[in-house]
């Protein structure tokens, strides 16, 4: 079983001695034999680094801070926006526009003034990860993209720090503990990332607001168990959470002897370029610059002039209900089998939310022989920004 007992001193360091105020605060821990004074001092001596102060990072940081983890680091470079508030419970409406670090710091200090909070206003990169990780005992991964997932894993393996892992999508989540001394790492489970575009992100696919709460609290639980050295860690197990079915399942994880990061003949001996590894170098800009396009201003002119144009909305029906341009709705995934509903002799302007899916639709239609089909640059979001500011954005 993976524990941190080997790196934690059995006798409390002077700085880990609890004051009377702290003893009162942690009373409900102290009266449990599994935590007790010794455990609470371990928590106070512990240094945990949270990557991200978003969906997973919110419950993680709040619970770890409240529980008495002595030193909590947070890495984030993002700013709070309105679409975060449905799930990122460390931030409030008044925080919109503020740095997530500043917003999170206010809440954490208010909850626990004894917390030694260290904030890192930066993107985690191959250049800073190792140095940063060395200053902490445990890394809790609350990031939202594949390059950073692999970066966190490799940096954890290289520095010998456990990686308390969680990830979410729509109604489902996964959690585990990677890169303990004996246990498997993330690359043992998934040697390679998916090709870009094949797995939608939360921004594209959505996520139930409570899901990061469920998974983030599991991560916080595993972090605290590692510090205390109690219980059965998730190392070697992948927990699958299905909130719709409300089912918790677990799968066995094995250390892959051929793992490039933690195997016997490991090839990853230093951090690499993770965006290149994930195949997304140069693709951060939304696709769609390479297909024939029209601006929202030009579309407006055409509509006002009653030009003979056909507006094709390639979003999903539930998105159409939020706002629409009265276009003809064919979700991009249905386009191949419903292409016969379109008249190739007419000028077609395809749009989606931001212009990415409709670029795919334009590409598909052009390959299918449509000559007068254009992508609405920036999608209905651009329309809401520049043409009809009363339209809701989502």
């Amino acid at each position, binding site marked *: 079983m993976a524990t941190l007992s080997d790196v934690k001193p059995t006798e409390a360091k002077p700085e880990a001695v609890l004051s009377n105020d702290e003893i009162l605060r942690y009373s409900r821990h102290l009266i449990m034999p599994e935590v007790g004074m010794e455990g609470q001092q371990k928590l106070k001596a512990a240094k945990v680094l949270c990557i991200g102060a978003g969906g997973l990072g919110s419950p993680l940081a709040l619970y770890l801070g409240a529980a008495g983890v002595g030193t909590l680091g947070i890495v984030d470079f993002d700013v709070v926006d309105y679409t975060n508030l449905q799930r990122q419970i460390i931030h409030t409406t008044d925080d919109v526009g503020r740095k997530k670090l500043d917003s999170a710091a206010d809440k954490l200090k208010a909850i626990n003034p004894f917390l030694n909070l260290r904030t890192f206003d930066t993107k985690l990169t191959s250049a800073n990860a190792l140095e940063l990780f060395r200053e902490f005992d445990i890394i809790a991964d*609350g990031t939202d993209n594949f390059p950073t997932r692999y970066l966190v894993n490799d940096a954890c393996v290289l520095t010998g720090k456990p990686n308390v892992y969680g990830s979410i999508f729509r*109604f489902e989540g996964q959690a585990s503990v990677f890169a303990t001394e004996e246990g498997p790492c993330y690359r043992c489970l998934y040697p*390679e990332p998916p090709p870009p575009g094949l797995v939608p992100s939360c921004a594209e*696919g959505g*996520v139930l607001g409570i899901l990061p709460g469920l998974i983030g609290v599991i991560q916080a639980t595993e972090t605290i168990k590692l510090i205390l050295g109690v219980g059965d860690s998730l190392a070697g197990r992948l927990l699958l959470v299905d909130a719709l079915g409300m089912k918790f399942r677990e*799968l066995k994880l094995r250390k892959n002897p051929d793992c490039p990061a933690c195997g016997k003949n490991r090839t990853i001996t230093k951090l690499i370029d993770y965006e290149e590894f994930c195949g997304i170098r140069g693709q951060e800009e939304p696709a769609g610059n390479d297909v024939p396009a029209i601006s929202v201003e030009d579309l407006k002119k055409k509509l006002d002039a009653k030009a003979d144009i056909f507006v094709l909305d390639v979003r999903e029906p539930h998105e159409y209900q939020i706002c629409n341009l009265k276009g003809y709705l064919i979700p991009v995934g249905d386009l191949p089998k419903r292409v016969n509903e379109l008249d190739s002799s007419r000028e077609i302007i395809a749009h989606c939310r931001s212009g990415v899916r409709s670029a795919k639709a334009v590409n598909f239609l052009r390959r299918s022989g449509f000559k007068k089909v254009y992508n609405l640059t920036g999608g209905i979001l651009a329309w809401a920004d520049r043409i009809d500011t009363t339209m809701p954005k989502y």
Partner: protein
Amino acid sequence: MPQIQIPSPLRQYAGKQASVNVPAASVGEALKNLVAQHPDLKRHLYTDEGKLRAFVNVYVNDEDMRYLQKEATALNDGDTISIVPSIAGGC
């Protein structure tokens, strides 16, 4: 009949179903029959060369098929196959 659990990111390519029952004696056969029933799933599970994609793990009950007999792993009635793709969301 073995049951295949479809993860939510892939359900849109499997008639929106959470699980599909397929007649099959091995894992490879089960996946082949699944893809035959739901052709849209194919490019999500297999590369152009017909290899199972590296970010898609397949479990028989709670065991990774890579540590069994891979696609040749025999199936019994009541076995559950889980397709577990990597997801990265966290914010």
